[in-house]
């Protein structure tokens, strides 16, 4: 609260070299994940079977993808609640196109992502140009895009997708490498996101805006264009997650995404991963590992025969724990 008064060193010389505090949340999470896997695995050996581990990783992919874009948005001090609606719409468009038309995968994929980008772009416009607080702007578009899904689907649902689509969701892209394509996609997207955030101007501009938008503007960074791009990417990635979802599950309904509260869960994993809700600081590796961690914990609850009704409570407690642990560490000046 009193940061103005806490500067203690003098100019010209530093009293002591400060240890540079870097909280390595991703390492903490990785350790925690292993602890859970080993612990539950000791009680229920099948928990550690390859197929179960593959499943736990695979089932975190969709959330992980959305979490990455959510991380970018949160770094700018924003929030994107519309991701789940975009995901649902994209899943529906992709699924219906794959069953009702003969468009090949390589055409449908960019089409859906472009659609997601357009929807995200509208969010960006509302936030950056019309100055609507992100939580309100994306709450509004959440209703709008959710409605679009209903109108588009007209009561239909996707029950199965064509084989090449299904192969995209379940097969291995590289033969002899037992890593399913969605996991590869997540790794690729996460690596690209990490590169953008740490080694490209665009990424640094995002961080600068999250720290202090006015200062960034004064330094010649186009705040509005950057925000527009961040929300656009968020929409495109959510759409991509929708594709992965359909390809993996083979089904989509009008409440896909919104019904599963992907928007809240993606925020949750970003926070568990160590991204600060106040913006300016983000941890992509943490987000990705956070999504795996969430999936591992929920699966562990099943294996430990905890009644299903308590899963969401577990999720809530986990967010609280992650956030309070983070607050403890960063509250020291």
């Amino acid at each position: 609260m009193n940061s103005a008064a806490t500067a203690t060193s003098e100019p010209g010389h530093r009293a002591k070299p400060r240890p540079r505090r870097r909280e390595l949340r991703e390492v903490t999470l990785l350790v925690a994940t292993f602890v859970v896997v080993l612990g539950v695995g000791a009680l229920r050996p099948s928990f550690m079977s390859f197929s179960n581990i593959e499943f736990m990783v695979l089932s975190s992919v969709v959330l992980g993808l959305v979490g990455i874009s959510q991380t970018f948005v949160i770094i700018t001090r924003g929030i994107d609640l519309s991701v789940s609606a975009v995901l649902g719409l994209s899943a529906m468009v992709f699924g219906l196109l794959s069953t009702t038309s003969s468009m090949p995968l390589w055409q449908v994929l960019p089409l859906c992502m472009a659609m997601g980008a357009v929807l995200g772009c509208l969010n960006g416009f509302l936030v950056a140009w019309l100055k609507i607080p992100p939580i309100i702007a994306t709450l509004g578009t959440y209703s709008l895009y959710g409605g679009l899904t209903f109108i588009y689907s007209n009561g239909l649902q996707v029950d199965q997708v064509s084989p090449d689509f299904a192969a995209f969701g379940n097969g291995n892209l590289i033969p002899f490498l037992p890593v399913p394509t969605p996991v590869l996609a997540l790794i690729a997207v996460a690596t690209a996101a990490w590169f953008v955030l740490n080694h490209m101007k665009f990424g640094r501009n995002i961080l600068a805006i999250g720290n202090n938008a006015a200062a960034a503007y004064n330094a010649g960074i186009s705040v509005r264009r950057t925000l527009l791009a961040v929300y656009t990417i968020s929409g495109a990635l959510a759409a991509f997650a929708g594709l992965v979802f359909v390809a993996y599950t083979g089904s989509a309904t009008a409440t896909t995404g919104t019904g599963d509260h992907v928007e809240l869960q993606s925020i949750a994993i970003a926070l568990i991963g160590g991204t600060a809700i106040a913006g300016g600081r983000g941890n992509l590796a943490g987000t990705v590992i956070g999504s795996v961690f969430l999936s591992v914990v929920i699966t562990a609850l099943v294996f430990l025969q905890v009644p299903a009704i308590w899963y969401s409570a577990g999720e809530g407690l986990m967010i609280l724990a992650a956030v309070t642990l983070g607050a403890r560490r960063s509250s020291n000046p």
Partner: protein
Amino acid sequence: MSRTSGLLAAAGIDKRFGANSVLRNVSLSLAPGEVHTLMGENGAGKSTLFRILAGIHQPDAGQISLDGAALDLRNPSAAYGHGIYLVPQEPALLKELSVAENMFLGMLPTRGRFPSRIDWKTIRGQAQDALSALGLDVDVRDDAKHLSIAQQQLVECAKALLRGCRIILFDEPTSPLTGREVGILFAIMRRLRGQGCTLGFISHRMEEVSEISDRVSVLRDGAVTDEVGRDGFDRARLVRAMVGREVIFDRRRVRREAQGEPVLSVRGLAHAPVFSGVDFDVRPGEILGFSGLIGSGRTEIAEAVCGLRAKSGGSVMLAGRDISTSSIGDIIEAGLVYVPEDRARHGVILPMSIRDNATAGQIGRLQRKSGILNRGREIAIANDTMHRYQVRARGIDQPAGQLSGGNQQKIVFGKWMSTNPKVAILDEPTRGVDVGAKDEIYRLIEELSAQGMAIVVISSELEELIVLCDRVIAIYGGKIAAELKGADVTAARVGAAFLGAEAH
């Protein structure tokens, strides 16, 4: 760095914010190789003028030109393009980013084609070189949040140089700095001037102005009232130009040795590592000075005494009552108030009315048993504050944000004084306040003291402590380093306490 000579001129500048006319037909020219100082009361429009020159605001009318060529400064980066850089009063470094990145903000060099990567090595190297050139020893990889305000200002200077800016405007840089830090800043300003840079400077402190300036322009109510060259400096003339009347300010209070029981008594106050072992007493009618550098712990001690900040040990007795564990509200109720130095952040709530602000310190007392506020008393208190401190406003329902800075400060002052405290701690009561208002505030403090209030004044201005205080405590490194009273409160001794403290 191959720039033109850099004669920056503004002509006929008008600027309004909503209904407020801030600048009216202002003309100013900054010549290369000179330090041109802008003086003026709060709300005179100094910062606005600099911000217009730096492209942050756009004028409603008028023209800015560089070496005779008209400029269109639609945003700060356009200004950088013409070599103009503004060092803001409170440097806006991005806390979570490294110092090096902050310095290259908005112009990060990249290498490679696509995707072009940020060239971190070059950034770090150049940033370190630029800081070393200014004599600042900071690890550029460190996060900016670890720098002091003074360090941040020097980083801002380095930023300007990195951008090849030769016209650097300093918006009141010295008010958060200690004397020693000001010395370092001035040395750098002189070096820049020697290199042919054009420097703009805003300050309230007369000594600083006469020390560094080659030319002074005075603004009053949005218009230039005087402009003098170095040889024409005359304190009285400048002050008159600023306030529009004569001000006598070599006044000195008759120092008193207050008697009687201490009304506030602090023992063993500690909160490691910020401060520890703090003991002091204040008696009714006494003005106690707290001297010390920013970051010495003086503000933290005061806030801990007033319950605004956690403490790990020690006791605070107010009029014989232990208030060490009381809440802030109870402490104010018991008669101890702290008037913070940062008006905009801690003092006044800009969107709320004068009435709401003036009564904000005593909501509890205005409440009836039902919890409903006594409107009549609220109005009475607000009117009384307006009257007693001569606040210039349309009425008590005007939002505080529409008032000038000086009038806001008066309301802040009135807000805490209207709670009728026994002890008041005033933190930098004249920070960022112009000469005329300063004089008025000194008079008010003396008046309150004469009525028997015990007052603690925290200040980093030597002159202020000597003019006002009966007794001065020097704080260094979170501890009481020296105590001076009576005849010992002289410029030499208080100055020595600063120096002595620094020798530790």
